[in-house]
């Protein structure tokens, strides 16, 4: 008797499993999209965004996947393994170009949503005259500073390198760390070296990039090498003592708690800092590299973009395009601005509700007082490996200035040969 009961149960379980397996067939009407993204500061907010979308279009379901630090590595293995995600969040310029060149991205040139973005942002996603991704947010990298600390010691936000030096000296004298550092992960230092390099290069940047991509020239060409590494030394001498062990969270904590007065970061970090300490009163300025205030422009450009995989099935491609279309609606823009705290690229988007540092960024953008994100235009491996690791190795005394430059040059030459 007992045996029969057990057998009966087993049978039921098996049938149950079988049915579960085929649920996909029963619910075939529902399109499931995979969305791959790397922005770790908006994990929760992306969930809200896709839920709002699914509410409006109940037959499309979006599955999120976040890979924060090694996103390009994971993406490449996914592509090579033949399961490319349907919607892919890509860093502007080189990442988009690399995947577009290999043919992995769908052509979006004729999609109506592309005409809704600010035209100048399209250069970041246009490869060989075709648009391969939807630019999503504009971000800036510079100094986020604590206005209260500055007020306490009677300091004004620096507009030149000399002023920055004296600000740091005053802060140090009063026992305040000038910069909250982040040396443990290499990406922030990669941004730093490229930011300073771009700022020093000024107008020579674009001709230099063109020359580099022809296999001529060197990273040191448009600038005075000594000046670049002098500023690196300056930064090293003015960060936390244990910056070498600090990751992004700790940098935010040090800045939010008022232990440090400034941090060199992208404005995307502001959200985390304000969450830790809601009373924080911040401003946002460019990192000054020159003693002429007019030459110090904000390092700001298109940051993230959304692309659609060229290998997705037609119905998934259709659904993915629907999602991109929806992102331009006021409802989506509102979530993007208020929850994700990112500056949108859509024409006429309402950003008046954003905090002071974002207003600073928008002001610089409107004045045209910005430098493009040169690092996004370098070949991917040049930035991901040579700049990030090279800058970190310099800071830790493992490579000297000439070796860093040679390493960047060698990597560049290898990359364009492909």
């Amino acid at each position, binding site marked *: 008797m007992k045996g029969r009961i057990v057998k009966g149960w087993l049978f039921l379980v098996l049938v149950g499993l079988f049915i579960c397996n085929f649920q996909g067939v029963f619910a075939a009407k529902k399109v499931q999209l995979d969305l791959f993204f790397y922005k770790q500061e908006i994990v929760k907010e992306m969930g809200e965004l896709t839920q709002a979308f699914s509410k409006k279009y109940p037959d499309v379901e979006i599955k999120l996947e976040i890979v924060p630090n090694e996103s*390009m590595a994971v993406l490449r293995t996914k592509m090579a393994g033949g399961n490319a995600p349907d919607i892919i969040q890509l860093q502007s310029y080189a990442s988009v170009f690399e995947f577009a060149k290999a043919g992995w991205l769908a052509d979006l040139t004729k999609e109506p949503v592309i005409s809704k973005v600010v035209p100048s942002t399209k250069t970041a996603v246009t490869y060989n005259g075709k648009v391969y991704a939807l630019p999503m947010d504009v971000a800036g990298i510079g100094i986020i500073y604590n206005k209260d600390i500055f007020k306490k010691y009677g300091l004004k936000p620096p507009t030149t390198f000399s002023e920055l030096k004296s600000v740091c000296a005053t802060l140090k004298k009063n026992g305040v760390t000038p910069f909250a550092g982040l040396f443990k*992960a290499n990406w922030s230092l990669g941004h730093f070296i490229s930011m300073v390099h771009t700022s020093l290069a000024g107008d020579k940047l674009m001709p230099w990039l063109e020359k580099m991509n022809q296999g001529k020239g060197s990273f040191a060409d448009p600038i005075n090498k000594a000046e670049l590494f002098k500023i690196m030394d300056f930064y090293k001498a003015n960060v936390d003592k244990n910056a070498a062990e600090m990751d992004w969270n700790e940098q935010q904590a040090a800045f939010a708690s008022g232990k440090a007065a400034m941090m060199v970061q992208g404005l995307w970090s502001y959200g985390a800092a304000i969450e830790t300490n809601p009373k924080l009163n911040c401003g946002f300025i460019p990192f000054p590299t020159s003693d002429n205030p007019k030459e110090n422009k904000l390092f700001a450009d298109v940051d993230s973009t959304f692309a659609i995989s060229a290998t997705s099935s037609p119905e998934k491609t259709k659904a993915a395009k629907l999602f991109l279309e929806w992102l331009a609606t006021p409802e989506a823009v509102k979530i993007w601005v208020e929850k994700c705290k990112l500056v949108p690229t859509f024409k006429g988007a309402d950003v008046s509700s954003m905090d002071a540092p974002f207003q600073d960024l928008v002001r610089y953008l409107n004045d045209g007082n910005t430098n493009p994100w040169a690092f996004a235009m370098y070949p991917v491996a040049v930035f991901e490996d040579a700049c990030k690791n090279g800058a970190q190795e310099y800071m830790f005394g*493992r490579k000297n200035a000439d*070796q860093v430059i040679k390493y960047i040059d060698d990597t560049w030459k290898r990359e364009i040969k492909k």
Partner: protein
Amino acid sequence: MVASKKSKIFFFIIFLLPALLLYSLFFIKPFIEGIHYSFTDWNGIVPEIPLSFEKTEFETEVLAKMKSPKHLAVVKKYYRLDGDFYRLTNWISEAGKPDRQLTNTERQKIKKALKTVGISSINYIGFENYKQMFTNDIRFIPRFEKRFLYNEFEDLPETIEAKAFHKYLLNNIKDPADKKWLLTKYQFDATAKSYHLLPYTEAEDERLRTILAQNMFENKFIPGVIGFTLFFTFFNVVITNLFALLLAMILDTKLRFKNALRSIFFLPNVLSLVIVAFIWSFVFRLILPPLTGIPIWLGNPDIAPIAVLIVSIWQGAGYLMVIYLAGLQTIPAEITEVAEVDGANWFQRFLHVKVPLLVPAFTICFFYSIANSLKMFDLIFALTNGGGPAYATTSIVIDIYNNAFLQNQFGYATAKAIFLCLIIIVITGTQLFLMKRREVEL
């Protein structure tokens, strides 16, 4: 009962043959493919078959050159004109059926057809990858590096040790005037054997800073990826085994809480290495600095390798201890008692009775720890953020990962992996050969 020949064949077909087939499928074949990829410039991102061609390129390079009508038909069937591009129809819609993706056989057909006109995503470059490893990869092999010791934005050092002052600063200054001037600012203190900074003016400050920033450096030996891996392997194998043996011998005695202690020492092995890494990064930041006086552990390129070693030993000793414990318990008590009666003291009993009988355990433990240390990845990856600070704790496997996924050099990374595989085979092979000869049977 002796099995008949017939049943032997039966068992071979039932049990061994499937195992052999699976082995060749999952080990031999990938290995041979790996060797094959190590001679190519595969960059990992180019798809196996191009997803699109420019119109003119397709017409001149493919359609015009392709001779065989069979291949031409294949290419024409799957590449359709769309604007200025010929695109691969990746999804095929047939009447009455749901859309389907290209099958593998269809892909192979296209690949074969395109290969006849010389279009393939992977090209052979001979031994180029292996050459690059030793000539053109500055992080891979050990080297000397000029390391500057002073940054002009730091405060000027008040005192410098006499030895360091001469070696790193004075010997590097070329201009004799600078040398002379510097010695007037830094005064030798014979009792402390160091140089002291004398009071200086605002104008002299600038000159002092420049001299120190430009001339104070050392030629430092940087072990590189290979050096770090060998350093890590050597110390990890020796110290872990020593600890494990010691623990096993202590726990083999008649201790009161030995069972509880055995579990405690084995516990680190049960934890996932990633969790271990998180626990230890707290220890290195909050507990060890006040205890030892060394402020930065994981962030210092000189100390981080040692920190990684400590965690690895702590984590690995428990497992090896179990093997040694099992070995010790198989030694019959009579033998040690006989030796005791013969007048052998504790040390003699250990060296001449226990060690020879433990050689099989040594063989296993050494083999296991050598192979594992050479392949170390997860602990370092989680503990030092992927081989940081500044590549100081990058093992060969992490370097392979970086080559492949950060630098798009999949072919080169594969070549390194083959190189690593050879190193492991040679080292563990020698070790097994040497130790097997010393094993004694009771």
